[in-house]
């Protein structure tokens, strides 16, 4: 039985991009860099971890615990490539189509 999947939060790609470029990163570092609330970032990182798009590595800071240092997994890198390629392809199509895009019937746009 496969667990029900959920869509990723809106900030997920931005967070993934930031970790890819500047990682490994801790929660507070990501929060500061992207100016996100604790709850928003927490929700997004949990969703990214559930999909194994990030790797939360345990890093000891005290006798009983520590923080997670996040890096992007191979799946995460593949998602970023796909997302960037899709947006670049869309940009090219829009440039070719010019103002036709604006004149398309909204129902079929």
């Amino acid at each position, binding site marked *: *039985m496969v*667990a029900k999947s959920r869509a990723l939060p809106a900030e997920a790609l931005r967070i993934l991009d930031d970790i890819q470029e500047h990682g490994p990163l801790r*929660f507070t570092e990501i929060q500061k860099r992207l100016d996100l609330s604790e709850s928003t970032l927490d929700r997004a990182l949990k969703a990214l*971890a559930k999909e194994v798009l990030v790797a939360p*590595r*345990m*890093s000891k800071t005290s*006798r009983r615990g520590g923080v997670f240092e996040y*890096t992007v997994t191979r799946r995460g890198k593949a998602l970023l490539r796909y997302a960037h390629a899709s947006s670049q392809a869309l940009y090219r199509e829009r440039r070719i189509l010019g103002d036709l895009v604006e004149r398309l019937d909204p129902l079929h746009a």
Partner: protein
Amino acid sequence: MASIFVLGPGQWASDTTGPTPLKIRERLVDVLSAHHDAYILEPLAEDASDRDLTDKFYRTMRDRATTDILIYWPLEAKMQTTLDEIVLLRVRVDEPDAPRVWLLHEAGVLKRSFRGYEIPAGVAERSRYLDAINTLRAVAYEWRDEPELFDLARRLNDNLLDENASTD
């Protein structure tokens, strides 16, 4: 192709119904074996050349050229042997050919928050076990039920397809 040593308990600590932790680990091995070499530690045989389980543990890692360790950690299971194995891993965690460690733990094994994680009292009472878990530098994923556990294993499988895939 990765070589994955799947560690974890064999029995429940209480009268839990359903498959044993050993059966669940064997199913994890089946999932991972779709693309990789995955295995569990075989019992010490009567005529084995290994002096003890510590010898067998390290010899298995060496003979199978282990690249990855996957620790399955449910609640309510007998964890003593797994804790001992975690200490054995901790001893060698800084060696250049040390395998990557992935921890698939049930919610509650680690107390997770946006601040990080804490190992609750009861999970590892003795300081050497606490130190070992805390210092292992494992990549830790949390699951709440069996479907989530196996979803994680399948997704982890994809990540391990590339031998050069790095979590660093």
